[in-house]
């Protein structure tokens, strides 16, 4: 008998989704209660995940097609916390656009479910199932503000490109299956050897598909449009939560089935990493829409996480996970600021709307200042440590070129972060924004900013948690 307790979080969250759907059908005007219940469901899932799986070193279920290990439980917890915070700060925004409906929390829950399945997958089919579940939910979320043309456009673009990448991924999976005779990651790992040239195609297709999902250059084209068009809260969701899941799968693919083929994929990852870092930094310079700018900056940040993966070492993987965790906090904080730029039921997202913010809203702009400097990787803020760990791992493998290109692109990237700070602090002020923000929004901004600011006092804790992850 399988130990079903290990997948209790997934079971619980799917039951909650069904229950909420039924509730939505039978009860009129149930959006508020759906929101609260889904928040509650996520909280309980977090508790279950911590209780049931956090201490597990490595266990497999269902003919080894699902794996529970320290990486999967940690990433699930980050995903859930991310999902929770996105949901909790969404309400005001959604109400403003009159899209405060029951579908929103349910879609978020389903995509989270898909991601949790992805994170735990140890089998090509299970992985693909999870991927599609999360993607379908995300397509709908992108178009969620259906009265706006841009939102529909974003959803459609996302759908077409993402479907294409899923197709590539599937093709790659079938090639890999053809050579290994199995869909199980562990079996694939023992069956594959680098003699087969066609197999390289399979690996490349899978990596391309995954690169699409995390929007690494040169497969990033969808990101700026989708990020700009989607409702801001959904953009926030896009920039953090799916990236965690996709990164986990990326790690899993590279270091379980393809572990013996490092020579084949290492160069690809290094290329993806360098291209993303450089392009993300350069392309963001000309942007005027903050959401587009964040899209490019997130492309750059993905480049740094990939740099950690390219090292083929446990330290590298750990540093990537640290990077993505800190990145989640920074992005959450940045979007909380963005959601505060509201005046008379209208949200502002152009860079110039920030002009002179520091005079009217000193605290908000101070938070934003810290967040931006942290994103730029200036010590002693958290963003510096994220980059520091990654480059420490990269230099351990003597990959000097990668490290130097990466650090030089941080200088370029610093330019556009500075530009925002310049607009906030050095330019003339505009009208005041509303200050009646929801308590949760203030809470998430305060907590994440404090985490960013004071991370340097207790840097060891995060490392200790992450150091339990030993994939290789």
């Amino acid at each position: 008998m399988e130990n079903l307790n290990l997948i209790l979080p997934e079971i619980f969250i799917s039951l909650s989704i069904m229950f909420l759907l039924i509730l939505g059908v039978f009860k009129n005007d149930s959006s508020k209660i759906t929101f609260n219940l889904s928040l509650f469901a996520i909280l309980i899932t977090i508790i279950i995940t911590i209780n049931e799986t956090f201490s597990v070193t490595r266990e497999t279920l269902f003919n080894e097609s699902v794996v529970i290990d320290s990486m999967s439980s940690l990433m699930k917890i980050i995903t859930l916390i991310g999902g929770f915070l996105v949901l909790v700060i969404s309400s005001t925004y959604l109400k403003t656009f009159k899209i405060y409906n029951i579908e929103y929390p349910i879609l978020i829950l389903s995509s989270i479910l898909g991601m949790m399945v992805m994170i735990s997958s140890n089998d090509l089919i299970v992985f693909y199932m999870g991927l599609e579940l999360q993607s379908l939910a995300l397509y709908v979320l992108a178009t969620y503000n259906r009265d706006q043309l841009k939102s529909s456009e974003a959803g459609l673009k996302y759908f077409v490109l993402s479907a294409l990448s899923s197709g590539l991924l599937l093709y790659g999976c079938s090639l890999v299956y053809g050579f290994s005779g199995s869909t199980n990651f562990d079996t694939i790992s023992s069956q594959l050897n680098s003699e087969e040239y066609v197999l390289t195609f399979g690996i490349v297709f899978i990596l391309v598909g995954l690169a699409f999902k995390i929007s690494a250059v040169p497969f990033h084209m969808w990101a700026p449009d989708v990020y700009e068009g989607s409702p801001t809260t959904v953009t926030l969701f896009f920039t953090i939560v799916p990236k965690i899941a996709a990164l986990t799968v990326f790690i899993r693919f590279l270091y379980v089935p393809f572990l013996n083929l490092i020579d084949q994929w290492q160069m690809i990852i290094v290329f993806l990493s360098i291209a993303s870092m450089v392009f993300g930094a350069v392309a963001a310079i000309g942007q005027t829409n903050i959401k587009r700018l964040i899209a490019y900056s997130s492309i750059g940040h993905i480049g740094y996480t990939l740099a950690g993966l390219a090292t083929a070492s446990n330290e590298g993987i750990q540093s990537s996970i640290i990077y993505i965790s800190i990145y989640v906090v920074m992005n959450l904080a940045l979007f909380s600021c963005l959601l505060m730029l509201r005046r008379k039921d209208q949200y502002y997202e152009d860079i110039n709307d920030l002009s002179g913010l520091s005079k009217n809203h000193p605290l908000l702009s101070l938070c934003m200042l810290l967040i931006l400097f942290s994103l730029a990787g200036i010590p002693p803020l958290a963003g510096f440590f994220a980059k520091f760990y990654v480059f420490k791992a990269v230099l351990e493998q003597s990959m000097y070129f990668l490290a130097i290109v990466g650090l030089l692109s941080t200088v370029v990237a610093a330019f556009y972060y500075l530009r925002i700070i310049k607009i906030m602090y050095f330019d003339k002020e505009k009208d005041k924004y509303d200050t009646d923000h929801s308590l949760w929004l203030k809470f998430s901004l305060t907590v994440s900013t404090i985490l960013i600011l004071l991370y340097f006092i207790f840097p060891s804790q995060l490392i200790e948690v992450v150091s339990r992850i030993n994939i290789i």
Partner: protein
Amino acid sequence: MNFPILSSLILLPTIGALFLFFIKEKGDNSTIKYVALFTTVVNFLISIYLWIAFDQSTSTFQFIEDRTWIKGFINYKVGVDGISILFIILTTFITPLCIISVNNSVKNRLRDFLISILIMESFMIGVFSALDLVIFYLFFEAGLIPMFLIIGIWGGARRVYSAFKFFLYTLLGSVLMLVAIISIYWITGTTDVVQLYEIGIDIKYQNLLWLAFFSSFAVKTPMWPVHTWLPDAHVEAPTAGSVLLAAILLKMAGYGFIRFSLGLFPVASEVFTPLIYTLSVIAIIFTSLIALMQEDMKKLIAYSSVAHMGFVTLGIFTLQQQGIEGSIIQMISHGLVSAALFLTVGVVYDRMHSRLISTYGGLVSVIPKYSILFMLFALASLGLPGTSGFVGEFLILMGAFKDNFLVAVLASIGVILGAAYMLWLYKRVVFGKLLNEDLKKILDLNKSEYFILSSLAAPILFFGFYPDPLINTIEVSVTDLINMHNTNIASK
């Protein structure tokens, strides 16, 4: 001594800044100013105590604090030796003067300005007391944030351009140093400076690592040809910002050269000495010539800073006792003199709102007190005997003559040029006919300005006539540094 005196030096200004953060800005800003002033004066007193308690007879680091920070990787380690203690005192001495001087030059958002300055002070003391490469880097880079804001928010017309230039130039220089620091960790297994001094770094890595550190320090010093951010940043920064920049920020790189480039990479330092000599001599002569042609007073002083820092780098890499001691004294003296010069320019700028030399002339007949003090600082800047500027320059040239005759001769030309631009500036501003009608109404120094300038004049004269307290403090540490260097070279 268990009390963490260095950490409290580092933390105290930040705590003061935190206090300021919670004080509401009201009509008169006296509370805010007093809190800031109180914090920095206390800090100064602590640092004076540090100097008294400091044991001058040994070159080992004192007041060491060593705590685990990132387990198994980095320790929070601070400590001082004869070299760093002087820079700490310079920092704590200049900062309160900056705060007194903001009276006139900073009109809006005084509270934010003082917070920036206090935080800046924390970081700078951190730089001078860090005994771990990563901790050093942390403080070194963190200083960019407050300085960027000081230039950008309170600066003059082209402030945005200058702030960006300052930030990006220095960041670009520093990231390579970060690569080097992490590489050192992987090569030797530690980033603790004291341990690294003992272990030494393999010769085959030294050249590249030295260059990486150099790229950062050269920008910060600033050395020719990467000095171009400095005049822009200086001209656009408010007076207090220029003072901090010239007096203390520029010293971080000189200190870095002594502590890290010489200490960690002795062989490479030897190899690259010709490079440093060339760049230093170019800096001394070339920027002195540029300074001659300036029409903006602040810009002239900024270029003179580059020339003076050229002397400093020259002195450090003579690798002679006199040269290095001279460099340290030159840095301290330049800290005092350039601070004083920027403040003197600030005084007339506050009254006339012009930095152009042509606006002025004949000041001596309207504001005599000002003219006398200005005279003193100008003479100290050109290195007249009896001022602290002379001691440093003289020792550096002595060291240089021992090591390389040609370089020393060329550097001496710089001394003459220095006298030329400084005296010409003084002549055009203070002497001559009073042509500008507005100048007739100009007021002489008020009490606070008088106080600031004379408290800068006192140490300049004192150390000019009696440099022993400075030399005694650094002597043992420098001798030890040279000995360590020579044994390293001998054993290669």
